[in-house]
């Protein structure tokens, strides 16, 4: 079964070239992508992730939207949503370390090749027990 993935930008940054680039790369790599565009909120990400029954959530950050990731992780935890979250874009090294500890499954930096992103996503999803969404 094809991997289904939600790609979103949360917060207040409108730069969406990177995430469009990634959306195309993932579709080329055989992944079903649900891209919801910029200006998403934690609520909308939770709602779409559940409704669309995705295997994975990818968030793009350029202008500092990573500041909302701890809140997103907390929300997933609180609502017992067992879907891994990955992050791509411009993330300071110290922030990345702290978000890794908090539970972000993978990070992708500018210049990451399409192949490397697709491969990493497959690995994350296949490494799990096959259960999707809610526990």
């Amino acid at each position, binding site marked *: 079964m094809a991997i289904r993935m939600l790609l979103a930008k949360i917060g207040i*940054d409108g730069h969406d070239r990177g995430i469009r680039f990634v959306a195309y790369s993932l579709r080329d790599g055989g992944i079903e992508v649900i891209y*919801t*565009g910029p200006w998403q909120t934690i609520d909308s990400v939770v709602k779409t992730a559940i409704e669309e029954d995705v295997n994975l959530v990818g968030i793009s950050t350029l202008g*500092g939207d990573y500041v909302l990731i701890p809140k997103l992780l907390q929300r997933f935890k609180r609502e017992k949503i067992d879907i891994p979250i990955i992050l791509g874009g411009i993330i300071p090294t110290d922030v990345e370390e702290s978000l890794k500890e908090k539970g972000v499954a993978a990070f992708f930096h500018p210049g990451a090749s399409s192949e490397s992103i697709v491969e990493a996503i497959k690995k994350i999803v296949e490494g799990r027990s096959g259960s999707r969404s809610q526990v």
Partner: protein
Amino acid sequence: MDQKLDLDKSLRKWEEGYDASLGKVPIRKKKFTTQSEITVEPLYTPRQISESDYYLEKLGFPGQYPYTRGVYPSMYRNRLWTKRLLVGYGAPEDLNERNKMLLSAGETGLNVTGSSVSMRGYDTDQMAEELDRGYVGMYGTPLDSVLDTDISLEDIPIDKVSVNYSDQAPFVSTATHFVLDKIVGSTNHADCFSHWISCAMYIVFPLDAHVRMTVDLVKWCSRNVRRWHPLSIIGQHYSQNGATPVQELAFTLASGIAHVDNCLKAGVDIDEFAPRISGFFDGQINVFELAAKLRAARRMWASIMKNRFKAKDQRSWQLRIHVQTSGVELTRQVPHLNIARVALQALGAVLGGCNSLHTDSWDEAITIPSEKSALLALMTQHVISEETGVADVIDPLGGSYYLESLTDKIEQEAWKIIEDIDARGGMMKAAKDGYVYRNISNSVRRSLIAVKNKEKVIVGVNEFCQPEDESSFESFKIDPELVDRQIERTKRLRKERDQAKAKAALDELRLIAEGSRDGNIFQGVIDAIKVDCTRGEITRALQDVYGKGKPYAGV
């Protein structure tokens, strides 16, 4: 002997030699193209630009129609381009300090970007409460009120330097200047089309509301202030969002046409506002294509204003151009190499006759630029103006067979897109129905493929890769005390003002916006700021009337 025959004969001889050489050593690439996918021939000769009236019709002299060679007769011989570094981070105090440092190091103009907090219409305290405090000062400087603008301009010689603002509807930063009576020569990146399409600014207002506010701003400035240039038409947004240089040029000029149409419809005379329109383009690394794009932009704008809109004042025909070197082309990998990229991008901009230039800092691909790296970026411009000699001759590449041919080609291709947009009913429709966005997305898609199969080489990313080195840059940190102070300042302003007057001003603004009271929205914004209303309040008052916009079709 007939010169033409002689040229043909020599050309054929060269072609034979070229083919023979390729027979021995194979050609380096399957196809040679510019960033706009324009085919690049192996050699350019008088053949490509041979019409007899070519010079006067297509080039002319600097300061003369069609301004291909520059808008001023003397260009950089007596007045260099304005060296203008974009600054926006931290608190208004940070902005002030960085700008003073750059001015003392030879910067000649300021370039201020409001924070993404401000651009979404939030005040710092609202942002901290509603979303996250971490956003404050992260990306651009938040300017909530007159107090913040005042701090940002402290000890800046505003009578000597102009300021380039990225201030969008409802133009609060612009209005704070008039309230403070700190009126500088300024350019504002107020182009709502590029913001709406490429920066997804439908989140703040619908496009029609953006247009109404822009027209009111232009009208107000044309009639009330002299050196304020309220409308800069922006290609840089389209380009950074993924448009090719040709698309960037076409979308920008089509936006310009729509703005002019809108202002004319509102009853402003063409020569009353057109001299104050300027252009803002992206500085890509293909040096010749960048120079050609800027030259084509001036030529096309001059024609649009003279022939399409029948402007009489020659200043209406002149497009002064600001360039920002392309951030998307900078890489996280081998980050110091970005210094070289920026130098080449800036060189292209100067060879294209830009009037104002921002150069990116090398660490911009990774973080908010440090003071040291911003200084290096500024000094790169000094190297170009003082050491290379390219600023000593006006339009030094003019007459190059390749450059002139490329300028013509870019112009032809851009006209085709403009005609297409005209046929679709203009830029308003093309923006709303997703035409522009879709075309940009297609270019993003094509560039993805080109990078993947290495038709497009990015040094250090898909070729000539090096082990990653992240130890050499400092990550930007905001001073939390300055954030506290700003939040406090905005709260105090709101608390200590005359509440009745503030409420009356916001009510009045709503009435003007909904059309039940005659008036100019920008005047309403100024009046609200005079009684200490803040950016967030003004934006919300207008959102009460206009609501927010809707997104166009996605990927």
